[in-house]
């Protein structure tokens, strides 16, 4: 017996390496002039527009919609650099990674022409309306309803844990258009484009444990969606969703999120660390190099037109477990506190470690929990 898990080896083509240098130069310059603080992440439309102006959003999409018709590997390189630097990508990352490709593939023509070029320019922020109070990991249990009306649909219900809803211009929402059938409990859901400022929308903040406002509850009260906003086939969203997952889950965003605290740790410990610290650094670097190889391999397989769903889940499971454990490993390699005043490197390190420690719990929940991922891998092993 052999399993179908496969990670084709890959090397970045020359054009992607050249691009990597370009992105690094851009980020260095932006950071130097105070355009963003490396390692902080965050939300900045101004930064998004600059990235768009460089041609680094919608990179793989057709030129007809403003895209760059470049490769998945070039897109990979841009995303990876942004994350490793901790650049403020929140305004554009969802549209570029998920919502745009979804519209490109399933959206109606007039919507594509209207929306996609604006994502490419970095003007639009998207959010994803999947989870509901009673349907989290069990996404196909969604009950927020879209009911047919003249010229469109009327939506009622609630979405929850919606990141960036309070900043977003649009949501791609999974809505119930028919009841499930006895044969297929996933039947009856459809995807729609929702304008966040449409009448009847209410967005309530949910403050997370770091004290930040990132996710929200979104209430729909007779929100009208025109017919043109249906994305893909009616009642068939479950079929559309599967392919998207490989795109969502394989990206470098699934193992670099706590990387900035590691950089500050290496800086703080200096050029000649103790054996114990050197070993700790080496182990983390080994893991990072291995994860990058695997993640890049998935990007290469996507570029080759394959659909590496189980492989992507597997990389995300390994990657998120690593990035989650990293701050804790670093914590125990850090020097004991002293009564001396911290220097600038100490202070930067401490702040980065605090941030990474506090966000760690979400890393194995967002975008598919660890348990969901392991279920997908188990299916790939033929166990389900």
């Amino acid at each position, binding site marked *: 017996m052999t399993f179908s898990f496969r990670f084709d080896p890959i090397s970045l083509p020359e054009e992607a390496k050249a691009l990597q240098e370009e992105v690094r130069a851009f980020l260095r310059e932006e950071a130097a002039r105070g355009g963003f603080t490396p390692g902080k992440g965050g939300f900045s439309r101004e930064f998004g527009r600059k990235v768009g102006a460089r041609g680094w959003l919608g990179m793989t999409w057709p030129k007809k919609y403003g895209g760059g018709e470049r490769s998945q590997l070039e897109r990979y390189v841009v995303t990876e650099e942004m994350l490793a630097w901790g650049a403020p990508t929140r305004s554009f990352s969802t549209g570029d990674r998920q919502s745009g490709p979804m519209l490109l593939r399933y959206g109606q023509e007039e919507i594509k022409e209207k929306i996609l070029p604006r994502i490419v320019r970095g003007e639009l922020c998207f959010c994803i309306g999947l989870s509901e109070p009673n349907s989290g990991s069990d996404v196909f249990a969604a009950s927020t309803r879209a009911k047919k009306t003249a010229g469109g649909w009327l939506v009622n219900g609630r979405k929850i844990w919606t990141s960036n809803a309070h900043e977003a211009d649009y949501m791609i929402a999974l809505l119930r258009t028919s009841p499930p059938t006895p044969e297929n409990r996933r039947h009856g859901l459809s995807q729609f484009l929702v304008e966040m400022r449409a009448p009847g929308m209410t967005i309530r903040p949910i403050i997370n444990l770091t004290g930040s406002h990132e996710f929200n509850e979104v209430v729909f009260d007779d929100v009208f969606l025109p017919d043109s906003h249906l994305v893909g086939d009616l009642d068939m969203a479950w079929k559309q969703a599967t392919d998207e997952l490989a795109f969502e889950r394989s990206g470098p965003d699934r193992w670099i999120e706590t990387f900035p605290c590691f950089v500050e740790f290496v800086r703080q410990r200096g050029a000649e660390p103790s054996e114990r610290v050197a070993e700790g650094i080496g182990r983390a670097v080994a893991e990072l190099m291995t994860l990058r190889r695997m993640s890049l391999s998935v990007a290469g397989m996507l570029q080759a037109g394959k659909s590496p769903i189980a492989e992507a889940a597997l990389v995300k499971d390994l990657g998120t477990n690593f990035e989650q454990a990293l701050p804790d490993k670093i914590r125990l390699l850090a020097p004991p506190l002293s009564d001396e005043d911290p220097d600038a490197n100490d202070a930067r390190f401490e702040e980065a470690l605090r941030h990474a420690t506090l966000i760690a719990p979400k890393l194995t929940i967002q975008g598919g929990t660890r348990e969901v991922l*392991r279920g997908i891998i188990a299916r790939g092993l033929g166990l389900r």
Partner: protein
Amino acid sequence: MSETSDSIILDTATRILSDLCGPEVVNDAEAGKWPQALWETLEESGLTLAWVPEELGGAGAGTADGFAALRVAGRFAAPVPFAETLLAGRLLAAAHIPAPSGAMTIAPALPGGSLALSPDGRLEGRARRIPFARSARHIALFARRGDERFVVLVAPEGLGLRAGTSLAGEPLDDLIFEGVIPKAIAETALDDEALLAWGAAARLQQIAGALERILEQSVEYAQDRTQFGRPIAKFQVIQHNLAMLAGEVAAGSAAAAAAAEACGGGETALPRLAAAKVRGGEAAGAGAAIAHQVHGAMGFTYEHSLHHRTRRLWAWREEFGNEAFWAMRLGRIVAAQGADALWPFITAEN
């Protein structure tokens, strides 16, 4: 090498090992019975000297081919010095010494290990933990005389040998050289650690092959074994354990591929090799642990063949530098380059 020859080598290795390396052969080898048929067939196929050019008596295959064959050997827990003979051939070839026939091994095998060549050309020193030393008809080794470096070929006659065994029950012997006269000596430009790096890369291929097989064994076992009225593969906790095992197998496989590239030819890409041995070694340990948990008491018996691979995984992760050794080495390189070079360092290899 072209893809065609790759798959020919792979097919050849797979055919030979599936014919001649069943569980009973592995058990017999541990009991002290040399697997003559297996070894002879491997040798006749040219696989054992794959890395030796034809003009020096070998098969002249590419490094990738040899590594691919080692992965198959790991899968079958082949209880013969296949990796060691390949490595010896590569070492001899690097110094243009013709390769003799028969099983070989290499020395030194430990980090920091060193043998001395005296002014009159005799070998002095000790090399501990040499895999398959007592089965070898020749030993290819790396030695120094001051700043000069040499590749040396010796026969085991006249060497002191203290027998030992690995966790897998394979020979792991100490060799004592007291004025040994070599059969061949050639100066070399190779780095002191070239052999250590190649050995680590070879072990990683074997680890990857063994990991792939224990995943298959674990999935098969979970589907066959019924408890509480259903196959244990139906329990979510078992499924998740197997998913984690699959993750370790994939990481081990990525590490093996990275190591093979790092030692592909010319100078070794040391950081990449170091990272691979760290992560591959971790995968060996974590993977073996899950496979055993899934197999329950059955996998802890001598009768079940799971231990053919898990005991080798525990042995191989330790050889040619363990995780801690390579992690420390890697961490020092990273720290010396500084924090701002960290990301370019991680992304440099692909």
